[in-house]
C-alpha cells in the first residue's frame, strides 16, 4: 500500500504559478572553487574510480599525447567546486542567506511538504580539458520545474538546473544539466509484527514444511486418491489413514474474497485482501490475494479482484520460520 497524499488541485495550481517565476533565475551566483585543479585530488579520484589513463598522473604520458601537461578527468568538473559533506549539511540546514534564490525556493517547496531532495540525473557537456593550475568557478541557473509527479519515493517535482563551469579566464569548461527531485517523503511504513504462527501438529506440519520449500501440496488419499484440504489424518471417503501428496500447479480462481479493514492486527498491512482460492486441482484454500494496484487509493484494492478472477501462486517468505502461499490476480485484458 502507498500512503501518498497528492496536493489538492488548488494548492498545486498556486504552487505552479509561484514556481514558474523561478525559471531562468540564478540559483547559485558564480562561486569560485576553494582550490585550483591539483594533482593530489586527481590522484585520489583516479584511484577511487580505478581510472588508469596515464594522462592524469604521468606527465610524460600526457605530453606524449600532445597535451601541455597533466589533465584532470573531465567528470571531475563538479568535484572541484563541491564543498565537503559537513559544509554542505550546514548550508542546507539554514546557512543560506535569507535573501538568496535558493533559500526562497527551498522555503516555498518546504511549505507544501517537499522537504526531501534526491539527485536523479546529471548530463555533462565538456568543452575544454582542465589542466593542473586551472581555477574553476560555477554558476547554476534554473532551467525548468516540472508539474507534480508521483514517484516511488514520494510526490514531488523535478527541478532541472544548468551549471556552467568556467576557468580563471572566464572560458566555459563544462556545462552540466542537473536534475533533482524535490519531494514530500512517503510516510515510512511501520515495521510489521511477525504474523501469527500456525499451530503445528502431526496432521499439518508437513504442509508448512513444504511451503518453506515453495511447494504447495495437497493431501491425497493413498487408497482412493481423493484430494483433501485442509489436511487431516483420515480420508472421509474411504477411512484410509494412508496418504501422500500432490504438488499443486499454483493456478486457480478466486472463489470468494474479503477486504479486511477493521480491526487491524499489527502483523498485516490494511486494507488486507483475503480469499478462498479454488485450485485447478479441485481443492480450495484460504490465502492472501495480491493485486497490481500501483498508484491506486489503498481503499480501492477491492476493485482489482472479483469472484472467479484467475490467480497464480506466489510465495511470501515472511520470516525464517514462516512461508505462505499467496495468489496474484492475473491481469486480464483491459476493458
Amino acid at each position: 500500500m502507498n500512503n501518498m497524499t497528492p496536493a489538492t488541485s488548488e494548492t498545486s495550481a498556486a504552487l505552479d504559478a509561484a514556481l514558474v517565476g523561478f525559471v531562468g533565475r540564478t540559483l547559485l551566483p558564480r562561486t569560485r572553487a576553494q582550490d585550483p585543479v591539483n594533482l593530489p585530488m586527481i590522484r585520489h579520484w583516479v584511484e577511487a574510480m580505478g581510472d588508469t589513463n596515464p594522462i592524469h598522473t604521468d606527465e610524460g604520458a600526457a605530453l606524449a599525447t600532445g597535451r601541455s601537461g597533466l589533465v584532470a578527468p573531465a567528470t571531475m568538473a563538479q568535484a572541484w567546486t563541491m564543498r565537503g559533506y559537513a559544509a554542505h549539511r550546514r548550508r542546507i540546514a539554514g546557512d543560506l542567506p535569507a535573501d538568496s534564490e535558493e533559500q526562497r525556493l527551498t522555503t516555498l517547496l518546504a511549505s507544501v511538504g517537499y522537504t526531501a531532495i534526491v539527485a536523479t540525473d546529471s548530463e555533462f557537456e565538456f568543452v575544454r580539458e582542465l589542466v593542473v593550475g586551472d581555477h574553476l568557478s560555477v554558476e547554476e541557473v534554473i532551467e525548468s520545474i516540472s508539474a507534480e509527479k508521483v514517484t516511488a519515493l514520494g510526490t514531488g517535482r523535478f527541478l532541472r538546473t544548468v551549471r556552467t563551469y568556467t576557468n580563471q579566464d572566464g572560458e566555459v569548461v563544462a556545462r552540466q544539466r542537473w536534475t533533482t527531485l524535490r519531494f514530500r517523503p512517503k510516510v515510512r511504513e511501520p515495521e510489521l509484527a511477525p504474523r501469527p504462527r500456525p499451530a503445528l501438529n502431526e496432521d499439518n506440519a508437513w504442509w508448512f514444511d513444504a511451503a518453506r520449500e515453495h511447494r504447495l501440496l495437497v493431501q491425497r488419499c493413498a487408497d482412493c486418491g481423493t484430494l483433501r484440504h485442509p489436511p487431516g489424518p483420515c480420508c472421509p471417503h474411504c477411512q484410509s489413514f494412508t496418504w501422500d501428496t500432490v504438488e499443486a500447479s499454483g493456478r486457480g480462481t478466486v472463489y470468494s474474497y474479503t477486504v479486511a479493514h477493521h480491526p487491524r492486527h499489527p502483523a498485516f498491512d490494511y486494507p488486507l485482501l483475503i480469499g478462498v482460492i479454488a485450485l485447478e486441482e479441485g481443492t480450495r484454500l484460504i490465502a492472501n490475494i495480491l493485486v497490481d494496484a500501483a498508484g491506486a487509493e489503498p481503499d480501492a484494492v477491492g476493485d482489482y479482484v472479483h469472484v472467479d478472477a484467475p490467480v497464480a501462486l506466489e510465495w511470501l517468505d515472511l520470516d525464517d520460520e514462516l512461508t505462505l502461499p499467496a495468489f496474484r490476480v492475473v491481469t486480464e485484458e483491459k476493458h
Partner: protein
Amino acid sequence: MSWRAVIAGIGATEFSKSSGRSELQLACEAVVAALADAGLTPADVDGLVTFVKDSNPEIEVARSTGMGELSFFSRIGYGGGAGCGTIQQAMLAVEHGVAAVVVCYRAFNERSGVRFGLGHADQPMSATAERAAYSWLTPYGLNTPAQEVALFARRYMHEYGATSEDFGRVAVVDRRHAATNPKAWFYGRPITLEEHQASRWIAEPLHLLDCCQETDGGQAIVVVAEDRVADLPHIPVRILGAAQGSGADQHLMTSYYRSEITGIPEMGLVGRQLYAQSGLRPDDIDAAIIYDHFTPLVLPQLEELGFCGRGEAAGFIADGNLELDGRLPMNTHGGQLGEAYLHGMNGIAEAVRLVRGTSVNQPASVERVLVTAGTAVPTSGLILGA
C-alpha cells in the same frame, strides 16, 4: 406433538457496554431473576446448562445462588451455535426425568472484557485439533468473525445477485424494532438504509452496521416439567421443537470447502428436525428470532428454514415480510444488532415473551415462534408455542 418440558421463566441483567461487575455476578443475577419470573427459588433447581465458552462454572453459580444438589449439568460447544441447544439439553433432561427444574444461562462481559470481535489471532498456541484449525486462517490475517462471514457473503452476492443494501435491510428492521424496546442498547436510535450504506467498512462487503454489537450482560431461562405448570405465574411456553445441527464438512466459521457455500446446511438440518418434531410447516410460524451476529447470514437462514426459496431472501425481506405487520415479524426485540449480543439467549427470551403476548413490539397474533442460534458454526433451533 409437544414435549413434557416447558419454559417457565426468563430473566436478564441490563444490557450494557461496561457492567462494572464480574461475569459470575451477571450469571447469578440472571439466574435469580429467571427463577423469580418462574415463581421458583434456587433451591428448586436440580439442573444447569450453559455454553462451553461461558466462564461461569455450574458449581460456582449453584453455590453462589444457594442451589443445593444438582443431578444434571451440561455444556454445549461452538460459541453462539449453542443457544437453542441449551434449551434442548434442559428439555431432554426433564423429559427423561433426570432433572425437574433446569436453568440455562449465559453471562459475559463481552464488551468490557474479552471482545470476540477483535479476533483470535493472538490466542495461545497448542497442537490440539481445535487450535490447529486456526493454522489455515490466522497466518493470513483471517482473524475475526466479521471477516469469516464476509467470505460467505461475497459468494452469496456473486451467485444470487444480492447487494449490500439487501444485507442492510436486515439491520434496518432490527434497529427499527430496537428503537421501541426500552431494554435495547439502541432504544430510540433507528437507522436508515442510507446510514447503513454510509457506515465504514469492517470487512468488505460488511459495513459496520452489518455487525452486531458487543455487550456485557447475562440471560437465563428456566425449563421445568409440565406437571409443575399449575404453580407458575405465567402461561407455560411449550417447546414444540428443539434441535441441533452440524452439517457435512463442518468447520468453525470457515466451512468454505463444501461444493456450495451460499446455504447453511446445518441450519437446514435444524429446520427439518424442528418441522418434523412439531408437525408444523414454515407457513405455520408466526414470528421468528433469526440469529443476526452479521446481517448476511440472516438471508440463507430464511431460505434454509423454508420461509422463501433459495436466493429469494433479498426479495422476501425487501417486500416487508420481516416487519411487525409482515408475514414473519423478525427480531421484535431488536436482535443482536439492536437489543444486545447475548449469544442469542436474549432472542430465546424474546420468543418466550412473544408466546406470552408480552413483547414490547407484540405483533397482532403470534402462536408459534421459531428461534435460531449462531450460524457458520454447529447450530441449534427451537419452535416455541402456547
